[in-house]
């Protein structure tokens, strides 16, 4: 069940795709898919079979804006304990990262789970801010602790929703995409329905996929079949985990606490209803409300690091090795852009495995 692998079946699928010779360009929106594609060499095998898969804005750390990181940095410098996931720790804002600020002597912690952050808040009198990132997969967990949070705890939300970003990519029209491989664990929460408007409005085939090599290959095959048959719908390959209706309990928890609002993503203009903020009844635990005065001193616009092409990489327009900084100035040890920091960032994955 855990190693969903079968070499014969994988070979069969690749041969069939090769025979079909469809010359497709697909996109996925999940860093874990990118890892599977590159780690197992599937990208190269699929390319030989006439299918190119481009990574989209599927890494929550990578799409977090410099402004949001600057907010977390400012709160750390103002004496709050700022906790976040390991991936976020080293992503630079305009210049510095939270790791740099910790090195200056401010209190920044890395936690595995928001529950660790709650435990941290219970043990201290200081204000604790959880810099909370992640797509629909992560948001229900953030929402679920709201009933147990101590008074010195607040959330700096950088949560985002995936379907609006998928539509934004199509609307921007910078590149032709023949179909989407949809993220398995976002879909675990939201199910199939929230993607349907993308198929109906934009004639876009979509398949929800798991993260084993065979999952991705089957999903590509299912997309190829939709395209051949002239169908456009949302299908689910990852049936051992994703239910058609998703996880309703998790979704209710998320919707109770958070509401969508228009927000920008790194590399994108403002995407309507794509961000999540705490609802008014929980504003006491919203770091942006609680520290409104302190945060109002920040600029609204922050520049991307000079030469960094993370924005175009997140829109699927260029590959990491087409960035002049890749592997030279920008390395996992000294990352310039977010894609090099996170293990789910396209730049980090490409450098780690040495392949596109």
């Amino acid at each position: 069940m855990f190693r969903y692998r079968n070499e014969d079946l994988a070979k069969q699928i690749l041969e069939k795709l090769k025979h079909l010779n469809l010359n497709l360009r697909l996109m996925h929106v999940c860093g874990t898919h990118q890892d599977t594609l590159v780690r197992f060499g599937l990208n190269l095998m699929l390319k030989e079979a006439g299918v190119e898969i481009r990574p989209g804005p599927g890494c929550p750390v990578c799409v977090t804006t410099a402004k949001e990181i600057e907010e977390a940095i400012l709160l750390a410098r103002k004496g709050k304990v700022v906790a976040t996931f390991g991936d976020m720790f080293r992503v630079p804002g305009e210049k510095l990262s939270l790791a740099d600020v910790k090195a200056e002597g401010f209190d920044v912690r890395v936690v595995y789970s928001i529950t660790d952050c709650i435990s941290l808040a219970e043990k201290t009198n200081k204000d604790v801010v959880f810099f909370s990132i992640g797509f629909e997969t992560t948001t229900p967990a953030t929402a679920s602790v709201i009933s147990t949070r101590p008074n010195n705890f607040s959330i700096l939300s950088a949560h985002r929703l995936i379907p609006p970003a998928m539509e934004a990519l199509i609307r921007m029209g910078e590149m032709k995409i023949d179909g989407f491989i949809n993220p398995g664990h976002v879909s675990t929460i939201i199910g199939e329905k929230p993607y349907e408007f993308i198929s109906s409005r934009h004639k876009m085939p979509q398949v929800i996929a798991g993260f084993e090599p065979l999952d991705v290959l089957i999903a590509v095959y299912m997309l190829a079949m939709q395209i051949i048959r002239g169908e456009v719908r949302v299908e689910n390959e990852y049936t051992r985990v994703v239910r058609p209706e998703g996880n309703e309990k998790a979704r209710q928890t998320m919707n109770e606490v958070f509401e969508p609002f228009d927000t920008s993503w790194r590399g994108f203009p403002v995407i309507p209803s794509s961000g999540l903020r705490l609802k008014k009844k929980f504003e006491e635990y919203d770091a942006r409300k609680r520290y409104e005065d302190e945060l109002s001193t920040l600029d609204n616009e922050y520049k991307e690091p000079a030469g960094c092409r993370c924005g175009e990489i997140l829109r699927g327009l260029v590959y990491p090795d087409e960035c002049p900084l890749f592997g030279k100035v920008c390395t996992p040890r000294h990352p310039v852009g977010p894609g090099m920091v996170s293990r789910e960032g396209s730049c980090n994955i490409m450098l780690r495995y040495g392949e596109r």
Partner: protein
Amino acid sequence: MCLAIPAKVVEIGKGEGKEGAKAKADFGGISREIDVSLVDAKVGDYVMVHAGFAIEIMDEHEAKETIELWKEMLEKCSDTETRI
């Protein structure tokens, strides 16, 4: 970031609220506390765990069935792939 890892639920806390949300899970030999408040899991279930939270109960039967189904389907359509 959206990485989720399967684990087997071996113990669930008693009572309502915070304690009842805690469970002990086995990640292939490594035991760790997880939160099961987002799923209706019972002891013995395999769950997908993301950032310390079980986000869904896995369907073991479904996993085996799907591979068999695909094998069968691909074999059947060996000469008619454009028509399936």
